[in-house]
């Protein structure tokens, strides 16, 4: 089934809602078309196309909720799914934390959909990969990469008059180029809503260059170093702050944002005053949904301003309990940067380490947000403003909170993709002093 237009989605949801006999009813409709192509050893390995449509009905009697779903859209099936949700609601235990569905909301017009991305063909995917493979051939490197494009339609409607609709597109690309002898490896990743912005050749050239330059890496002693984290490296650390902005966890005393005696760090300075992080669904470089999954509007929200924790995310239940605005979690986060390019940051560094990418990030201590992980695919020693030689990879043990207190300089913001979560961010490269590398790794 092709993705429904706004009018088609509205008509379908109205029909489903007309069958409801519950106190409250809410319907979510999602349609997704994805295509992907994966390659390794300079050859395509797997590739596929998947299409799915799902309709979820939530029915509530008082504080008792039932949920049922279908992927068949004839009238009989639609009525059946509503009855099923109602039966389940009547059988369910009361949930004291259930909050009545939202009434009508005002949403900004989303800007996530790009027709060119929605129209990608298997040939275009293959052509994009062919360009990447040509770079591997020209540079005598070994390519492994992945490209995935997604077109999504989301709609929701409820018995209180709420209706929301959006469509979005996205394409993520990542490429690893290794030397033929396996002694060097380089990486690049790109994410866009607009497929026409994706230049697989250019990204592959960057990865190949890093791969070739990172061969025959030297071992240097672990310890505290000044590092320049490229956006892809910074993203996987910083997103642990974004994921940890939940107010309830902080209020309950079990987060890095908790303070003794039931207090939190909300309103307190936590990191360097040059740190500003916000989300904005209408940012042209990183557009995201203008409404959250439960119908709440997504607006521009400042999370960290001049180093101070400005806002936390709240479930509707917890916000009601605390008497505050129920701010939903962001779909993408933007960190403000400076004006310098990565090259200029390197130029201004007396001694330091350039980190292309970090890998296998895991929490070690939630109290301090201590994380561990490793550098990967292009780690270089900098001296007197120049990259001197490639170095062996390190394991780090570091908290992004401590890291942002050791901030030296921020570069120009760019869009990047987290290899851990696949989420896209706008993040600058950043220079950090005293970054803790705890041991060496022989991995290439």
């Amino acid at each position, binding site marked *: 089934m092709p993705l429904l237009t706004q009018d088609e989605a509205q008509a379908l949801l109205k029909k489903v809602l007309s069958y409801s006999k519950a106190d409250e009813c809410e319907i979510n409709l999602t349609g997704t078309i994805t295509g992907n192509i994966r390659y390794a050893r300079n050859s*395509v390995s797997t590739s596929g196309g998947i299409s799915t449509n799902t309709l979820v009905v939530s029915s509530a009697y008082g504080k008792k909720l039932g949920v049922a779903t279908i992927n068949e859209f004839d009238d009989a099936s639609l009525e059946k799914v509503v009855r099923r949700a109602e039966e389940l609601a009547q059988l369910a235990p009361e949930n004291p934390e259930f909050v009545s569905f939202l009434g009508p909301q005002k949403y900004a017009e989303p800007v996530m959909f790009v027709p060119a991305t929605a129209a990608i063909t298997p040939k275009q995917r293959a052509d994009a990969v062919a360009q990447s493979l040509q770079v591997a051939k020209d540079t005598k490197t070994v390519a492994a990469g992945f490209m995935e494009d997604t077109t999504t339609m989301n709609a929701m409607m409820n018995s209180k008059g709420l209706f929301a609709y959006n469509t979005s597109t996205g394409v993520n690309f990542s490429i690893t180029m290794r030397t033929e002898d396996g002694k060097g490896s380089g990486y690049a990743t790109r994410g866009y809503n607009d497929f026409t912005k994706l230049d697989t050749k250019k990204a592959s050239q960057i990865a190949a260059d890093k791969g070739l330059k990172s061969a025959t890496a030297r071992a240097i002693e672990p310890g505290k170093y000044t590092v320049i984290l490229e956006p892809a490296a910074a993203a996987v650390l910083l997103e642990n702050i974004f994921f940890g902005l939940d107010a309830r966890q902080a209020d309950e005393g079990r987060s890095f944002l908790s303070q003794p005696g039931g207090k939190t760090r909300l309103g307190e300075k936590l990191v360097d005053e040059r740190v500003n992080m916000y989300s904005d669904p209408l940012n042209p470089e990183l557009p995201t949904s203008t409404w959250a999954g439960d119908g709440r509007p997504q607006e521009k929200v400042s999370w960290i301003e001049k180093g101070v924790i400005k806002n936390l995310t709240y479930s509707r239940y917890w916000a009601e309990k605390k008497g505050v605005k129920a701010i939903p979690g962001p779909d993408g986060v933007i960190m403000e940067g400076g004006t310098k390019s990565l090259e200029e940051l390197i130029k201004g560094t007396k001694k330091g380490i350039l980190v292309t990418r970090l890998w296998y990030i895991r929490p070690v201590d939630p109290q301090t947000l201590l994380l561990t992980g490793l550098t990967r695919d292009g780690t270089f020693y900098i001296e007197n403003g120049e990259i001197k030689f490639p170095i062996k990879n390190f394991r780090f043990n570091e908290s992004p909170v401590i890291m942002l207190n050791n901030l030296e300089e921020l570069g120009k913001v760019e869009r990047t993709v987290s290899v851990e979560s696949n989420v896209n961010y706008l993040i600058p490269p950043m220079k950090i002093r005293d970054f803790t590398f705890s041991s060496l790794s022989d991995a290439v």
Partner: protein
Amino acid sequence: MKRRDFLYLTGMGTTAAMLSAIPGMGRPIAPERALETVDVALKKQMADVALNAARAKGATYTDVRIGRYLNQFVITREDKVQNIVNTESYGLGVRVVAQGSWGFAATDKLDKDSIAKAAELAVAIAKENSRLLTEPVQLAPQKGYGEVSWKAPIEKNAFEVPIKEKVDLLLGVNAEAMKGGADYINSFLFMVNEQKYFASTDGSYIDQDIHRIWPTFFITKIDAATGKFETRNALSAPMGMGYEYLYARPQDKIQGVTTLYKGRYDMLEDARAGAKQAGEKIKAKSVEPGKYDLILDPSHLWLTIHESTGHPTELDRVLGYEANFAGTSFLTLDKWESKKFNYGSKLVNIVADKTQVGSLGAVGYDDEGVKCGQWDVIKDGTLVSYQAIRDQAHILGLPASQGCCYADNWSSVQFQRMANISLQAGKEKKSIDDLIKGVQKGIYIIGDGSFSIDQQRYNFQFGGQLYYEIKDGKIAGPLKDVAYQSNTQEFWNSCVGIADQSDYRLGGSFFDGKGQPQQVSAVSHGSSTTRFNGVNVINTSRKIG
């Protein structure tokens, strides 16, 4: 999806709608729907539509997987049921070789026309990509089995157990923990049933019924004066079992500093102990960094085996197919070809087994129609084999695939996934106490915690749930802030003692991530308690102001 992502979601108060949006999680259904099955004759008809359509478009090989993936999640915290979700994901995936290239397509519309279209799309994709090949797909020969079936040997289908019984269990667990001093507890029951049908142009029509279960909890204890908090997670293992896993019996318990569980799990007892131990952790001594002899319980060691043995012996990683994401492997083909690569000490024997009863990875046939078995991976400390699938077998000179192919959903393409990989028990009679007795300066670690390993599986760091200092052959008291770092080869060569078969237990991963798009798989790792000498331990405590 990674386990931590799921836990993050549940921490945010997952709704059924959110769960349904997670790929592979499926869509919510009524509990009784889980007891229905799809008629095998209908599945055969649908499979034949795809096989014929692909053949007509020029496919030289086709396989079809019709999957019905059922999940049930019961999620509670303290005295509340947060969510009960039943999901079903039902559809068809078709994989083809055309012009020497793989192609794949999937659909959740199971009428003849949609199935045929999916098969045709798979062929079109394969043909389009064939110009990017360096060499055509080479499949190991595989005989057709005709119409066969396999069912997991469970005693009690978890989906038949009333929701009320499950809710009562979890709320009972929470009450025990809160009574024992816990400030918070989140408890979960995850149940999975894969009803999988496989058909291929080799002439196999295989119907399988697979069950998995994972009861778990996370306890938090906060020191009101300092704001410091500690956690203690359940010591359960996810298992390839039915609800019988939760019917604990005395003979399934191993008594020691805490009760350990073998093949059955007493969740109430573990929650009581967990609450007490979370409090002890707050007061525990912070570890002095340095070299220690480690005694590692199977509830912890499974994860070290998984990361440092399971992943680096996956042949696709060795060959570079995962280079862009999960990484490659230090266990390169030349090391295997030498027949003398020293992976670990002579005590280290590691077996791959796709048939182990009660394990997460046990199936009759893999997802490309290969009958499953077991084989040695590390023999007396030496690398002797990998884990391979049909298009890799020729690289190892194998006459057939080792049956390691798996897809996490009908909508995912199958690829090489880890078999159950287990450290064999010691041959001499040896208990946990015997191992501890021999240690002068050491740490006994129970339960899995933080884990991280590099992209070639050399350097790793692991934490746990419970740490006990060992001094002069005796447990001296609890420790905290412990993590150990090592290098795979160094670590396994420092293995100096393994308890005997009576201590052998399974641990495992319910959500092991790999591939692009990322897929999850469930896999078990067995071992007995094991000693490693002179491992580097770091202190993980920090201050953030």
